[in-house]
């Protein structure tokens, strides 16, 4: 028995429910091209690009906690215009959807960026949830009317699927997801990183040059499961789960909670096998489906609710 792993996220047909999370592995198109040849990768989300190029923060920008990472990269990226050019050079060779992650700081930027990037993107993920960059990400995401305006601008500038990535660092994430959907988002990606920081006891100083950063990896998996589970009951849009997926059980857990697809970030670096982690997880999910007698991964989406 070969269970079917195809899923449909707001019109994007993915051969596998596993996607590469934004920002992990950076913005290099050649890496995207290579990753996209992995049969267990269903889609790639790019590094978040902004209107202008950003060099990001000074090092240190990442702390390895073993059970997760803390990062405050500061959204380094070449800017949307140069990035469009780079993505253009590989777009044709990709067999899977390319989702471009954007971090506009206002509606004007959103429109310009999306119009320009539309030719290389199969969909967009709007990052309103980066916890460590001022005037972008969470700062924008927690200003409800601004966030909503940006999503509307994106929606108005493309006919392609629009995902909005939300933050766990708010009292009422359901409200944020709802207003994104009302503003035109086709799907919600949950979650971005959790606010955190680390202090080195020898240096007696915060490790990250930005002091605060975002926690990812195993540590946040239960937080992601919880948010996906609750969103599944409270919003109508499909959900893409993200956070601490290290093995097939973690992926299945998010799907049972209600995720249509699952993004993987930190595990790529924490796994001994690097990108093969996609194959291990893909194989695990197929074995699980077969063992439980399901013919398609679609059958288990949200099953933990019944």
């Amino acid at each position, binding site marked *: 028995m070969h269970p079917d792993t195809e899923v449909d996220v707001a019109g994007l047909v993915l051969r596998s429910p596993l996607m590469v999370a934004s*920002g*992990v*592995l*950076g*913005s*290099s*198109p*050649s*890496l995207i*091209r*290579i*990753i996209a040849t992995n049969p267990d990768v269903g889609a790639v989300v790019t*590094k978040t690009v902004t209107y202008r*190029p*950003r*060099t*990001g923060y*000074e*090092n*240190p*920008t*990442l*702390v*390895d906690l*073993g059970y997760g*990472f803390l*990062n405050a*990269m500061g959204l*380094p*990226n*070449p*800017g949307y215009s*140069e990035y469009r050019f*780079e993505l253009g050079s590989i777009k044709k060779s990709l067999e899977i959807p390319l989702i471009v992650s954007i971090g506009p700081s206002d509606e004007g930027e959103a429109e310009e960026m999306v119009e320009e990037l539309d030719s290389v993107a199969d969909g967009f993920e709007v990052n309103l949830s980066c916890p460590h960059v001022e005037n972008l990400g969470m700062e924008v995401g927690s200003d409800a009317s601004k966030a909503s305006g940006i999503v509307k601008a994106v929606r108005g500038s493309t006919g392609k699927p629009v995902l909005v990535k939300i933050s766990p660092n708010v009292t009422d994430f359901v409200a944020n997801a709802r207003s994104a959907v009302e503003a035109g988002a086709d799907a919600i990606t949950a979650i971005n990183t959790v606010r955190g920081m*680390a202090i*080195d*006891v*020898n*240096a007696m*100083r*915060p*490790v990250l*040059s930005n002091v605060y950063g975002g926690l990812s990896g195993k540590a946040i998996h239960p937080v992601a499961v919880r948010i996906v589970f609750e969103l599944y009951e409270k919003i109508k849009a499909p959900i893409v789960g993200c956070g601490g997926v290290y093995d097939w059980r973690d992926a299945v857990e998010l799907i049972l909670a209600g995720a249509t697809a699952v993004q993987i970030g*930190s595990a*790529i*670096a924490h796994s001994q096998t*690097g990108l093969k982690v996609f194959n291990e997880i893909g194989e695990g999910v197929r074995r699980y489906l077969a063992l439980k007698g399901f013919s398609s991964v679609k059958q288990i989406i949200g099953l933990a609710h019944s």
Partner: protein
Amino acid sequence: MSASHYYLEATVASNISETSRVNTLVLRLREELKIVPGQFLMVWRPGDGEIPITPSLTMGETLCLTIEKVGFTSSRLASLKPGEKVFLRGPYGNGFNLSLPGRYLLIGGGTGAASLTPAYLSLVKKGVETLFLVGARNRESLVYVRRLRELGAGFQVATDDGSEGFKGTLPEFFAEVSSRDRFENVLTIGPERMMVKIAEKCVEQGVSCQVSLVRIVKCGLGVCGSCVLDPLGLRVCVDGPVFHGEKILGSDFGRFMRDEAGRRVEVVQ
């Protein structure tokens, strides 16, 4: 990790001026750090930043870092005084493969002479026949030769202006040496354009060549993608920094790198 939490603390025992632009920090650690020659460390001073450095000596609890002042962080680190602290994480990366059969020719340009020293000492200790070529623009720019002499290393010098040793560049010296004698293995660290020429020559001659690349390293863990070598998609921090020349010739090696924003820019040296 468990012993050190995030970073290992090291104390500057002395700071040796190599040239006007290059210093060697002699560091004392509280415990021995096991490093394969060619692996690198991330070296942090709170407030001053953190950069990747390939140690130029590791001996018990002593560790040497030879640092060229190219910008803010490297200049701050290279100017530390005895008693000051630096914080280390790593080792990271793959290091050199020193178990390939045959004799070894090591070619170090600039601080590369220092960074190759642990590999040199390791080969000599294993009884492998090894010749070490070090080079610089002129006699004043030669790095680490005093230390190499102290260590009793056998090495030969090239300077562009002939102020010491062979007159010419390291690729030229390499051509000269290999016209007389064939080494089965070449290891090289230095300016990238120099390494490309050496790697090309090795491929021509069917000689195994390992080069150590420099890219912008942020995480050092293979997560952030800042150090990617295109179009191969190799991450210098985990897939490298050491690569076999024939695997990366024809790529951006020697031609393009990415700056801190991920923009593709020309390699200048």
